[in-house]
Structures are given as structure tokens and as C-alpha cells.
């Protein structure tokens, strides 16, 4: 131990350095954990708690689990009925499927539109890439709400799109787009497209173009080059983009509320109705909890398979 001449003093110094190192490490990993606990775990526990209580006409509009009964006894009442209600009432189930459908289809639309855009930006001359990316991000500088209102102005029966098409003579009657699910798809795809493009751009720009030359050299035509080289290597970006679109769209409220009609039933909108119109906090909380579980399960599965694939890769080494 004392072989290096420093002796006990050096050892103590090393220990102190180690301690500082671990403190630093705790700080670095601790801050995001703290963030997660305060802004995710705790609120979720509150929601979970509310979802298991009984609704009441009170302030707040639910009953505590722990109650003193008239004869001085303390009783704990946990109510699972809200979840039962969600299951029994077809409204909630169809809202869940409605959300899943809108999220799935708009994720697909974002992918179909975003992939070529991300590819084009990644292959653009270096000096053009940053300006093009800026154009993708630029809409974020305007309020989300205002942008959706703008779409109302475009899609209205009396809106820009209809007027333009009428002026062109393509249509005789204004199209009924506003307050249909088509309007929701348009709005959602528009709003979430950048979230698809950015991670896709990140993976596609890292792709070495010489790999495509190698594939061409070995006899692959351009379509085959894409399918066998570009696409498989961009899958991580596709997954990241798809999650960034799918997850928030599942809980989306503003777009279906402003652009959608009575047939566009989505969880987010329903939650809003339960919370603020019906003031049924327990049911609304149960909905939120179910939504979280629905979103977290595929995510965990994905992580599981990813880590298994990684483990396989290392095993082979």
C-alpha cells in the first residue's frame, strides 16, 4: 500500500478524491432521478390515489381513503369501481381504441412524410442542412394553440383551402373537412411531424454513403440498396420518432377538441370532460392511469428486447 512512497497521507487523499467522485456521480445521476420523482412519480401516485377513491360533491370532489366513521372508528375504503366503470362503459373502451387508431395512423403518416424529408436533409449539401433543419423547427417558435387555430382557418367550410379549391373549380361544394377525423389526422400529423423528422435525421445523417456504393458495387439496384442497407440501419431512428409521435398523440386533447367532431373520440378529450365538465376526478384519474399503463407496456417490451439483442451481440463477441 505504501509502496509508492506517499504512505497514509496519499491514501487518505485518494479516498477523499474517491468520495468527491462519488458525490459528483450522485449529483449527475441524482438530478434526473429527483426530477423524475417530483414531476412524474409523485403526481402519478396522487392520480393513482384519486383513481381509487369515491367521487363526492365536495372540494376536492372525492373522498379520502381514510375516514373516521360516526362511531369514532377509522376505516380505509379503497374503491376499484372506477376501473370497473371504465371497463363496463363502452364509451371509454372505444375512446381508448379511438386514441390508439389516431395515434397509430398519424404515426404512420408522420413516418411516410417525415422519412423522405429527413433523408433529403441528411443528403443535402452540408451548408444547406442547418437551414433546412431550422425550417423544420421553426413552427415551434409559434404557440401550438395558434398553429392549430390557423388550421381551423384553413380547413373551415369557408376557409382558405375550400375557397382556393372553389376558385380553381376543382370542387363545386365546399368540402366538409372541419370537425371530422380527417381534420384531426391533418392537425396531428402536422403538429408532430418535426418529432419524427429530428430523430430520423440524426440516424440517417450518421449513415455512411459509401455503404450504398458498396451495395451498388455488389449488384444491388437503388430500391434494393434502400431496403437492405438504409432502412435496417435507420430502424432505431424510426422507433425513436414513432414513440415521440405515438405517445403524446395518445393523450392529445387540443387537436381533437378544436379540429375534431363528435366522432373523433379520444382519451385526452374524454379525460378533460371527466375532470372539468363532470367533475368526476376519480374516473378521470383512472383513465389517466390506464393510459399510462397502455403506453408504458410497449415501451418496456421494446427496452427488454433491445437489451436482449445487445446481450446477444456481446455474447457473440
Amino acid at each position: 500500500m505504501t509502496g509508492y512512497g506517499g504512505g497514509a497521507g496519499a491514501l487518505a487523499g485518494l479516498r477523499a478524491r474517491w468520495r468527491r467522485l462519488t458525490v459528483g456521480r450522485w449529483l449527475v445521476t441524482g438530478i434526473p432521478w429527483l426530477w423524475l420523482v417530483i414531476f412524474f412519480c409523485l403526481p402519478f401516485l396522487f392520480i393513482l390515489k384519486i383513481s381509487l377513491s369515491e367521487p363526492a360533491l365536495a372540494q376536492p370532489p372525492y373522498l379520502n381513503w381514510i375516514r373516521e366513521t360516526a362511531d369514532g372508528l377509522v376505516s380505509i375504503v379503497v374503491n376499484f369501481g372506477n376501473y370497473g366503470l371504465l371497463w363496463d362503459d363502452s364509451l371509454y373502451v372505444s375512446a381508448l381504441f379511438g386514441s390508439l387508431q389516431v395515434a397509430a395512423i398519424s404515426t404512420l403518416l408522420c413516418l411516410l412524410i417525415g422519412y423522405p424529408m429527413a433523408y433529403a436533409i441528411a443528403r443535402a449539401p452540408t451548408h444547406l442542412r442547418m437551414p433546412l433543419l431550422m425550417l423544420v423547427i421553426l413552427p415551434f417558435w409559434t404557440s401550438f394553440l395558434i398553429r392549430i387555430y390557423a388550421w381551423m382557418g384553413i380547413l373551415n367550410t369557408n376557409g382558405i383551402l375550400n375557397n382556393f379549391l372553389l376558385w380553381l373549380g376543382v370542387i363545386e361544394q365546399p368540402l366538409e373537412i372541419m370537425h371530422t377525423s380527417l381534420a384531426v389526422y391533418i392537425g396531428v400529423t402536422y403538429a408532430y411531424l418535426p418529432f419524427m423528422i429530428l430523430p430520423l435525421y440524426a440516424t440517417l445523417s450518421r449513415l455512411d454513403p459509401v455503404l450504398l456504393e458498396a451495395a451498388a458495387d455488389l449488384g444491388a439496384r437503388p430500391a434494393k440498396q434502400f431496403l437492405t442497407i438504409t432502412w435496417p440501419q435507420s430502424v432505431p431512428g424510426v422507433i425513436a420518432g414513432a414513440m415521440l409521435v405515438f405517445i403524446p398523440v395518445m393523450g392529445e386533447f387540443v387537436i381533437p377538441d378544436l379540429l375534431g367532431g363528435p366522432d373523433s373520440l379520444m382519451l385526452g378529450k374524454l379525460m378533460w370532460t371527466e375532470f372539468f365538465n363532470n367533475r368526476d376526478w376519480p374516473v378521470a384519474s383512472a383513465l389517466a392511469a390506464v393510459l399510462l399503463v397502455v403506453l408504458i407496456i410497449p415501451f418496456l417490451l421494446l427496452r427488454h428486447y433491445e437489451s436482449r439483442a445487445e446481450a446477444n451481440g456481446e455474447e457473440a463477441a
Partner: protein
Amino acid sequence: MNNVVANAEQEPLVRIRNLSKVFGSTYAVDNISLDIEEKGFFSLLGSSGCGKTTLLRMLAGFETPTEGRIFIDGKDVTDLPPYERQVNMMFQSYALFPHMTVADNIAYGLKQERMARPGRDERVREMLSLVQIEKLGHRKPHQLSGGQRQRVALARALAKLPKILLLDEPLGALDRKLREQTQFELVNLQERLGITFIVVTHDQEEAMTMSSRIALMREGRIEQVDSPQRMYEFPQSRYAANFIGNVNLFDGVVTSQSGDQVLVDSEEAGGQLCVRHSQPMTVGMPITVAVRPEKIRMVQAGDDLPNQMQGVIREIAYLGDESIYHVELASGKRVKYTQPNVQALAELPLTWGQTIALGWHADRCGLLAQ
């Protein structure tokens, strides 16, 4: 009419005619015409920016020539895309597909030509054993060392048994020991498979070791095409003489020619130089005498060397197997002279400041136009 004549004396495998490639306003390749014979090891040698890689990429089909035609096996391939050419390339960066195993990388080209599964697997096994990495088939490229990756790249490019294999700096990323070993393996492979190898390299030693023919390139043009031996012994320009190996150049003027002896008066050499040269020369013509350092020797008593001069040793570079001496002549010109270190400690070691007499035979040097 010309075609008949050309066919009679066996068509070369690759025929390049007046090929140019312009990037912006610079000629990367400037009006090159070149024939490459079948079953050889052909090197495109030159310093960076000489156009050798552009020429190779035009052969592969990655660059479209601005002018000129390329014929492979008598067929005009100038406008064919890379995936329709019977030419495969080994890339400088290897360009292995990172998401595929070694075996899938090698099978990629075979899948493109829809080779059936059993034959494909068999070919992959053959290729793996050909480059001696039988056990690595299931690995991913990132799990390989640089040398192993190089072998995979080679196996993948060879898998389709192309007519021509193009290699872009194939040994550039390997360390020195591995490079020397791989040089011989490449040559053996070429001889065994009978595939024509066209190699781009900037390393003259590499080109000398491996090639059956070398095309020395400079600024988009071809300086000289020759066998390694002729390239070294009979360089046709100062550039070629300097690029390959070491050389001493003495500028002078032709003073007379009798038979195959040319006399050159060179101020730098401090007198007359005698060169064996059979082509007729004009008296008074400025000329350069080129002599390789190892062709020079120390003058001993009774030597009858036509070219002799005295100088002072200024620098000594001890390389182990040999030493290079920089000898300064009276004219101030420095002559490089190498001597093998036959004895561990020379009996009469040459030292700095010592005056020595050097000389060489008339047939050990050459003439270069100025």
C-alpha cells in the same frame, strides 16, 4: 478495319480511351488512355490528388466520365451503373455493412444475383477459408480487428468471382508488419484466382512488391506505365525517377556521342559524365544524368570507373541493413550513396567530414530529358 487488327493481337481486358473527369474547373483525370491486360496485378501509383482514385471510381461506375470511353472485355461500359458491371471493389474504408454478420456481408453480392441457398453458403465458406477467417462468419464487423475487417472486405469483393477486382488503398489502414504479410497474400490470391487486380496506392514500395505492372500518375495524367523493374531501372522522367526510390540527378549538356556512349558535361558533377545510351542525341542538348545511390560505389585502387568524383561526407543515416551517406561535391551538390552494412562494425568506418572518392559504370546510370 482497325477492329480486326486489334482483335488479332488479343484485346486487353480493360481499354481506357481519352478518359477525362472534371470536377468544377479542375481535371482530376486528364485525357488518359490505358490498356490493362488480363490476369495481372496492375497498380495505379501516385501521390494524393493525382487522380488515381477517380480513375478507379470511374472503372467501378461511381463517377461518370466527362469525356472518353471505358471498355471492359471489349464491351463499352462507360454508361453502365455500378450494379450492372462485372467489376467489384474493395473500399479503402472497407465499407462493411455494420448491421450484417460477416457471412451476410460476404453473401450480399450473391443474393443480388439470386444465387440459390446451398451454393451461396458453400461460396461463403470458401471465401472465409480463402482469407483465413473461417471462424468469424457469425460475427458483426464491429467485433473484428482492423486486419480481420480487411479480410472480410476482400472476401466480400471476391465472392462474386468478378472479372476485375478494384482495390482502393487495400493495405492503407494496416500496421506495417501486417501490411508486409498481406502484400504477399494478395499476390498469391491474385495468382490462384486468376482475377485481374487493379490497385490504387500511394506507397511506391507496395506497388513495387505486388504489381506486375505499374501506371505512375501525376496531376491527372499518366507519367509512365511499366513493370516495376523497368520503372525503377529506366524511369522516363525526373518525376518517375524521384517518385520511385532514391536518385541522384546531375544536370548537364550533351557534348559528344560515340557508339552507345554519351558524354555529358555537368557542372554539378564537376566534369564529364559517361552514360551508355543507344538513342541518338543532339550535341548541346541540356540533359540530366540519373544514378541510383546503390549503383554508386567507393573507388578503390585500380578501378577503371568512367564516372568519378570526390566529396566530403556531410550526413550519415544508419538504417541498420544499410547506411545512406550524403556526400558534398566541390560544386556544392550533394550525392546520396548507400552502402550495405556487411560487417557489424566496419573495419574502416566512414565518418563525418571524411573525403571519399565515388564512382560508377557508364551502364549504371540513365539519361532524362530536362
